Structures are given as C-alpha cells and as structure tokens.
C-alpha cells in the first residue's frame, strides 16, 4: 500500500481507496480478512484511529463488515452491487472531466471525441 503523508487527500481516504480498489477488482475476495487495524497502523507508520476510519468508511459502503473481536472481513460482493459501485466511480470521474472541459471551453462533441480516442488507445 502506498501512502502519501503530505498529500491533500487525508490518509484514511488513501487507505480506503486502495482497499476499495482491491475489493472491487476481486483481489480481495468475500470472506477475506483485512489486516488487523493496529498491525496495519504499525506497518504503515500511522495512527490506529486513521486506519480505523478507513475501515469504517469501507464498512459504511457495505464492502466490509466488522465482526466483534475478530476484525474486519470483506463482504461477498453482489455482482449487481459491484457494477453499481463501478458505475458510480465512472460517473464521479466523468463529472470531474466535464468540470475541466467546461473550464477549458470544450464542447460536448469535442469531449466525446476525446473520450472515443482515449477508449481506442486503451483498447489497442
């Protein structure tokens, strides 16, 4: 896991986002245990509460569940839910792109062209 300690993005968000990627991509599977909060804090050289906040964020999204006294476990991912999660991230990132496009004064057509070109580039 990579943590930027001097980034604008809070450390707990960085941790949550990396674990989320691992869960959504299937690297972490349903039933897998997350590292213990205090062990991960020690490994990443950050405070316990920061790690805990990251786990709580994932729990609030329904990606993991806390089991009293045993730690956090990855939930079996419902395929529909998973697709929804992916869609939400696509929407988030596109919204961000639209914002930038408007600042740059690009038209919808231009943005769509750029998207098609990038899509082709990635597929190739």
């Amino acid at each position, binding site marked *: 896991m990579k943590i930027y*300690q001097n980034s*604008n993005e*809070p450390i*707990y968000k960085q941790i949550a986002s990396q674990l989320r990627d691992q869960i959504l991509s299937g690297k972490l599977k349903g039933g897998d245990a997350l590292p*213990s*909060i*205090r*062990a991960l*804090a*020690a490994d990443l*050289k*950050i*405070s*316990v*509460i*920061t790690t*805990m*906040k990251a786990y709580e964020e994932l729990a609030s999204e329904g990606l993991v569940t806390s089991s009293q006294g045993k*730690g956090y476990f990855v939930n079996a991912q419902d395929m529909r839910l998973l697709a929804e999660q992916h869609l939400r991230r696509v929407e988030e990132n596109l919204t961000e792109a639209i914002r930038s496009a408007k600042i740059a004064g690009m038209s919808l057509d231009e943005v769509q062209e750029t998207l098609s070109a990038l899509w082709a580039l990635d597929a190739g």
Partner: protein
Amino acid sequence: MENAVEIKELTKKYKDFMLDVSAVIPKGFASALIGANGAGKTTLIDTLCGVTAKTGGEAVYFGNMTDTDDDVLRNRIGYCSATNFFPFDWKLKTIAECMAIGYDSFDRARFTELCGRWSLGSPDDKKQKNIMKMSDGNRMRAALAAVLARDTDLLVLDEPASSLDPLARDQLCEMFREYLAAKDGERTILFSTHNIADMEFATDYAIFMAHGKVVEQGFVEDLKDKYILVHGEAQDGKKARPLMLSYTVNNTSFEGIALADNSANLQAVGAVTERPTLQQLSVGILRKAEEDAGK
C-alpha cells in the same frame, strides 16, 4: 467504545493552581495530553498514577478499579515520569533488579533486548555507566525500556519525547504502535507532550489542556472533521474573523481555525480552508484557550 480510564471531576488544589479534569482515555488507543507548559499535564498524570494525592473526584481504571495503591492495578499500569525516574547512582543492572522486585511481570530478557536495541549497553555488562552519566535521551530510553519490559495494560508516560532526538522520537512512535498491536485492542497509552508534531502519526485521541482544565478532547480524525484550518490574505481577515475561533494576522496574511460548519461562509469571503494537521489544530485550540482565559 470502552474506556481504559474515566476521569470524573478529578481535582488537585495547589496554592496558586487548580486542576479540575473530566476526561476519558479510550481503551486500545494512544491518547495525547496536549498543552502549554504549566497547563497541568504533569499534575494530571501524577494524580492519575497515584504519585500525588488527589483533592477530589475520582478516576476509574479498566471499568471498575479506583485505588492506585492496589497491587493488581499497580501491576497493570506502566508509569514513567518526565525526569529523575531512577536514582542517579543506579545502573542498568540496578534497574533490572529493582524492577523485578517491584513488579510481577518484569521480563529481564526483554529489558536486555530493549537496552540493546537503543544502544544503551546491557544490564549484564561488567562495566556500566551510572544513570547520572547518561545523556537525557538515554536516561529516558532506560526508563522506557524498564517500563516496556513489563506486561502492562496501560502506559502513562510524561513527556516521553521531549528529551529524544528525531530518530529516537520515530522509534518511540514505532514502539507505541507495537505496544498497541501486540494485544490488539487491549492495551492503552496515555502520554503528554508540548510538541505534538513529532507524535502526530502515533496519536489517536487528543486531550487539550489549558490552565488546569480540559478545553477540548476527541479522536484525532473526528477533530480534523470538526475543525478547519483557515488562512487568507490580510485584507480579507476582517470579514473572516467573526467566523473563526482563533485568529492571528500580519502584514500579508491571516490564519487560524474555525468550525468546519463555517467552511462555505469563509470561502465566500475569500479565505482558504483545509483539513488541519494535529499540530495546526493544537495551535488553534490552545491559542483560543489563551484568548478565552484573557477575557
């Protein structure tokens, strides 16, 4: 969440100083007592550990224990004062022998290992320095090694970082995390500091003290959501000031903290808002406490 210690209106009266504290120390975390010199951090720690007698109120440890003279409780708490912990003519060997007599769970092998890790020498060496001849930092390391060589549930450390060099402070943070991780969720640390920057990544819960009282407390991540760091150009300061809790200004810029609820309003008057670091939060909260005290 469970608390390792619940402090209920604990008071200690001196001629010219009054400590009056209600606070919790959450179980399983590292809590920092943050405050200026003279805020009452050491008085609180000494009262909690039974070094000084309280005037009133009570502290409840581990859910049901209140008597710091009780042998069971004494064995569960590892206390380390800021200065003069051991008599100066003691050596590492004397520390090891006395700790073994004084506490049930003192592990001499672990003490030797920690002394080695911090390059203090070994309590088994033929020739040993008197503690008096050690540097301040090494004296603190020796005291920390002694307290960490016991199997405790709560560490109470008064200014453990202040005499340490940057590398040793980093080791101290690491040691905190190891201690907490070793019995996942069962162990608790309380330490005081007047310089939180070095301990930021080892602090879970913060208790801010000023003039003998607690002025704010909470989990660090919650406090970082509750407050924002605000700064901007000096000319916008006048409009921002009424929305801020602490405020300083110079020729070019102003700075301070505010409640996160005011974020949008502050941005509207041209201020920049950020999620604060614990250090920035501490400066803001303690500055506000000083301003309030001056009123």
